[in-house]
């Protein structure tokens, strides 16, 4: 070689466009529903129209005479084999799990529960045949209101239980030894503010409806599914149906979004497997949107009673939280644990000396709840950020000043919170200063004062959310201490092919995040190979045999670190080969930009440099390797994080509130997020945008509403209203970078941050606009009607009470009629 190769540009930090896009923008996709196999039957599922009823008779035989029908089954046909839809998180030793059949056998406990399934030659024939199935139901009273459900003598959702309470989970800093007893703080409080917040039910609303194809092969199965969790699906399907795990292959092909909504093992996956195995034929089930909204799990659905205590100077002294968490009719995979994931985040960025958290998990006759983007942490962030504003109002203090007074200063990190979590790094001051400047906060405050003074019918409101969250699920021993049924590690393999190209196998399972691009950047930098030379393999338990999949903003901070660690091992193996060939000690070699060079020699000097590609081929040929060395550079790593990841940031929202109509319009939204070192700013920005949209949608647009008979009245996108483009503003996003010290890349999770942070910023802004009207809360979603009623004042109770604003039915998490105090 005559020229010294220029050091390749660093990949980490580069705004790379995505490797994933090509097939998605040209329609050459592999969605599960695209798949057709020879002999495949198509399934249609008959679902309960009743919220709560005994099945007095069911007869599917009429379907058999319909054209194209191959088979029709009811719960009785699988009662002995179907087991229970799995729940992996018994949050307390005495948690009550009444069991969850995939096909109801004797009783239905929510609208949309599967009661029968038809297999036919075509999907349309299967759907037509559903009409020939006779079911008779004996109605039972629905159980809709969380507080009423707990009253002694109330109707039981499940006959095999003695109460609608599944569990009570408690954390008390006085007991845990991580802080002072809450009772002392309550007794000594100079100021006490108590509020009830309602986290309405939301529906994840991934754009790709769930779909499953199962092919029986010998005594095993291959299952393709629109899932976030192919690895967990494999294990759970094996455990649930008694199929040996090694006989189950689970594949997540292109998956069209998840947001937590595809984190469970679903009844439909189990039903499809049961039918395919019973018939010995491949079977496909794809849900319609109406089925998805009704029968896939929902999220949030909590009543939050929050008490904060403080000194008159604004120093927060205690926080007491009591949740009623709606489990819906059944416990899904991690449903009981979702509110518990929030338990540690109520103290958020603040130095709070005393903290108590109590959560009751409660059964109702509604769709089961489980993870939805943020899972517990949006609820926590909402509660603390809302009540900080309420406290500031009580103290007549600027809400940002109150936050500044109480938050952890950047020089105080690492900081162990009242929950016992140690936040590694953070700089709340820096993010806040940047956000305030981008917002033009002071100018907006001036304008607000002017518009208040002039009595402008359109009032301006400014809202703050200074948030942190815990993600990167998760240190396995922490999960163990929380009684979760599995660990939180992640696995990766890095394989160097003979030609120097690199294959990376990961156990995370993308569904839109851009992992192929981000991981390729990491590996390109680590190994000094071109970005294009790295291939990421995922989502098939046969090619990616080990992993714990994608949720909880874990893919980069756990899965990515596993990749780094595997790549490090590759480098060490390559070092041995290079040392052997170059006849030097490994310690005398430097690895830089994809080549080993003898220390002190110029890069590329003849006889003293060996590139990874050369080493790869030498290893492949295996003619001249160190004695005893296996002819392979390939390496595995399984990474179990020591700590969670704690991204943070400051979100600011300005709203125009039309006090005549109640319409809220977001005028400006600024967020400055600190997600540590950026691997790819483009992907980060995309995650933030989408997260913001979902968090804002909770504040303004979305709610799953049940009527007083337990019917889902928001059963299509006509009534369940995710925002489209005109409903959202352009966001102003920026970042500060405070690298995490808990991982070698300095990265923090980003997948959920936007959703977690944004909801309270919007609500705080609306409440801020309406303070002069005496308003101190508007229930979400803040529909024009609710805002109008809040402004009107005399109707405040109706605006805040349950979903009275929706036609008077008591349909929400609670009807709000019970005073929390």
């Amino acid at each position, binding site marked *: 070689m005559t020229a010294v190769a220029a050091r390749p540009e660093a990949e980490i930090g580069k705004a790379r466009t995505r490797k994933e896009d090509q097939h998605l923008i040209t329609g050459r996709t592999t969605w599960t529903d695209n798949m057709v196999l020879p002999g495949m039957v198509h399934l249609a599922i008959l679902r309960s129209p009743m919220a709560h009823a005994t099945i007095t008779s069911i007869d599917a035989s009429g379907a058999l005479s319909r054209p194209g029908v191959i088979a029709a089954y009811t719960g009785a046909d699988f009662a002995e084999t179907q087991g229970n839809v799995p729940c992996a998180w018994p949050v307390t030793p005495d948690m009550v799990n009444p069991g969850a059949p995939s096909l109801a056998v004797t009783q239905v406990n929510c609208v949309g529960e599967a009661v029968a399934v038809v297999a036919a030659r075509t999907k349309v024939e299967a759907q037509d045949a559903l009409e020939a199935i006779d079911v008779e139901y004996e109605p039972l009273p629905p159980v809709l209101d969380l507080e009423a459900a707990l009253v002694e003598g109330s109707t039981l959702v499940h006959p095999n239980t003695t109460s609608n309470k599944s569990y009570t989970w408690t954390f008390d800093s006085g007991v845990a030894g991580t802080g002072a007893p809450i009772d002392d703080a309550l007794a000594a409080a100079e100021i006490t503010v108590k509020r009830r917040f309602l986290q309405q039910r939301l529906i994840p609303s991934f754009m790709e409806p769930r779909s499953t194809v199962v092919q029986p092969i010998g005594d095993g199965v291959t299952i393709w599914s629109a899932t976030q969790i192919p690895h967990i699906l494999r294990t759970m399907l094996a455990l649930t149906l008694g199929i040996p795990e090694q006989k189950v292959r689970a594949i997540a092909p292109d998956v069209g979004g998840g947001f937590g909504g595809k984190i469970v093992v679903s009844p439909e996956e189990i039903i499809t497997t049961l039918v395919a195995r019973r018939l010995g034929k491949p079977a496909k089930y794809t849900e319609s949107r*109406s089925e998805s909204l009704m029968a896939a799990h929902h999220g949030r659905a909590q009543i939050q009673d929050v008490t904060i205590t403080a000194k008159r100077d604004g120093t927060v002294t205690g926080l007491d939280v009591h949740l009623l968490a709606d489990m819906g009719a059944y416990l899904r995979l991690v449903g009981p644990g979702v509110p518990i994931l929030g338990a540690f985040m109520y103290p958020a960025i603040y130095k709070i000396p005393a903290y108590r958290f109590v959560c009751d998990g409660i059964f109702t006759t509604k769709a089961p709840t489980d993870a939805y983007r943020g899972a517990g942490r949006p609820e926590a962030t909402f509660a603390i950020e809302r009540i900080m504003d309420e406290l500031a109002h009580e103290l007549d203090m600027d809400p940002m000043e109150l936050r500044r007074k109480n938050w952890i200063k950047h020089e105080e990190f690492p900081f162990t919170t009242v929950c016992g979590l140690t936040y590694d790094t953070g700089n709340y001051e820096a993010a806040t200063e940047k956000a305030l400047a981008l917002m033009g906060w002071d100018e907006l405050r001036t304008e607000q004062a002017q518009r208040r003074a002039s009595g402008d019918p359109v009032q301006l409101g400014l809202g703050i959310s200074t948030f942190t969250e815990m993600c990167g699920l998760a240190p396995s021993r922490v999960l163990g201490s929380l009684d979760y049924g599995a660990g939180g590690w992640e696995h990766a393999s890095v394989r160097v092919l003979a030609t120097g190209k690199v294959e990376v196998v990961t156990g995370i399972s993308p569904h839109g995040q851009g992992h192929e691009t981000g991981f390729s950047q990491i590996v390109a930098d680590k190994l000094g190979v071109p970005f294009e030379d790295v291939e990421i393999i995922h989502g098939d338990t046969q090619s990616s045999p080990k992993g714990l999949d994608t949720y909880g903003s874990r893919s980069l901070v756990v899965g990515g670190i596993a990749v780094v660690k595997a790549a490090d091992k590759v480098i060490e193996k390559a070092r041995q080969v290079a040392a052997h060939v170059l006849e030097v000690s490994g310690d005398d070699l430097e690895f830089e930009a994809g080549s080993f060079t003898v220390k002190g020699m110029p890069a590329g000097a003849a006889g003293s440099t060996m590139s990874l590609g050369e080493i790869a081929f030498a290893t492949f040929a295996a003619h001249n390797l160190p004695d005893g060395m296996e002819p392979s550079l390939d390496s595995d790593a399984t990474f179990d994080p020591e700590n969670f990841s704690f991204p943070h940031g400051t979100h600011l929202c300005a709203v125009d509130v039309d006090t005549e109509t109640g319409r809220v319009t977001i005028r400006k939204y600024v967020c400055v997020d600190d997600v540590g070192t950026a691997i790819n700013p483009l992907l980060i920005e995309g995650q933030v945008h989408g997260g913001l949209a979902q968090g804002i949608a909770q504040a303004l*647009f979305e709610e799953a509403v049940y009527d007083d008979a337990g019917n889902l009245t928001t059963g299509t996108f006509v*009534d369940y209203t995710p925002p*489209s483009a005109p409903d959202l503003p352009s966001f102003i996003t920026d970042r500060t970078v405070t690298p995490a010290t808990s991982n070698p890349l300095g990265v923090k999770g980003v997948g959920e941050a936007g959703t977690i942070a944004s909801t309270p910023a919007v609500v705080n802004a609306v409440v801020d606009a309406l303070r002069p009207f005496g308003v101190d809360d508007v229930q979400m979603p803040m529909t024009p009607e609710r805002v*109008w*009623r809040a402004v009107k004042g005399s109707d405040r109770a109706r605006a805040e009470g349950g979903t009275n604003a*929706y*036609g008077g039915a008591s349909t929400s998490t609670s009807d709000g009629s019970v005073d929390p105090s």
Partner: protein
Amino acid sequence: MIPAAFDYVRPGSIDEAVSAIAAAGEDGKVLAGGQSLIPVLRLRLAYPSTLVDVGRIPELRGVRDDDGAIVIGAMTTHHDVMHDALVRQHAPLIVQATATVADPQVRHRGTFGGALAHADPAGDLGAVALALGCEFVCVGPGGERRVAASDFFLDYLTTALSPDELLTAIRVPKLGPGWASHYEKFNRVAQAWSIVGVAVAVRQDGGTIADARVGLTNMGSTPLRATATEQALSGASATADGIASAVAHAAEGTHAPSDLSGQADYREHLVRVLTGRAVLAACAAGPGA
């Protein structure tokens, strides 16, 4: 989801269509653009035995000038209505309201006549037809008749069209000089149906409102006229204060529904606010708007 099975016929003329409708009987259904009907069929909320597709009848499409009126073929798509020179010139209120109907894809398929014959009270065009005093041209075995807009909408999803009739065209009177108009729509999200909509046409004489017509969307089981407000507007000065007492009557005689989007008392409040805004916007826009 997939609709239940039905028979399908596609007549090529109005006469053939009338015969096909008769042949289909009471379980038959006319398929216009299908943008309301097909979702209903997919959800299996309706089970027609036969669909009579009137989408390929040339006489039903397009807009023509007929002296004092323009005549909009029932099967003219929303998109074509919005971009039609005659409509833009003589009935800008229709252009403005149609632009708020659903989304571009739906407006490419959905038709002016189909939307009106569907008679969903949350649909935006009924109020416009009332405000403009449109006439509905209905053709049946007995020939053609014209029905005034005020007589066309009978109840929720129910019109004066008899089961054997086809809506072939809508006659829109030209408002003439001095008239201005505005459609004010209020919905929760861009995709949602109107919670309330207000269609206003006003004729000003100097700074005074000489004549006003106000149609209301989703304030009852049919589109409605706000007649008390119309009368009170006559002679009012075209200012917020000048019209305040008139728009206070906007909810009189309405029967607003209570549903997911709002309770009746909210709609009654909203219709007063929006009527005021619509009247002022029309006045401000001036003739031709």
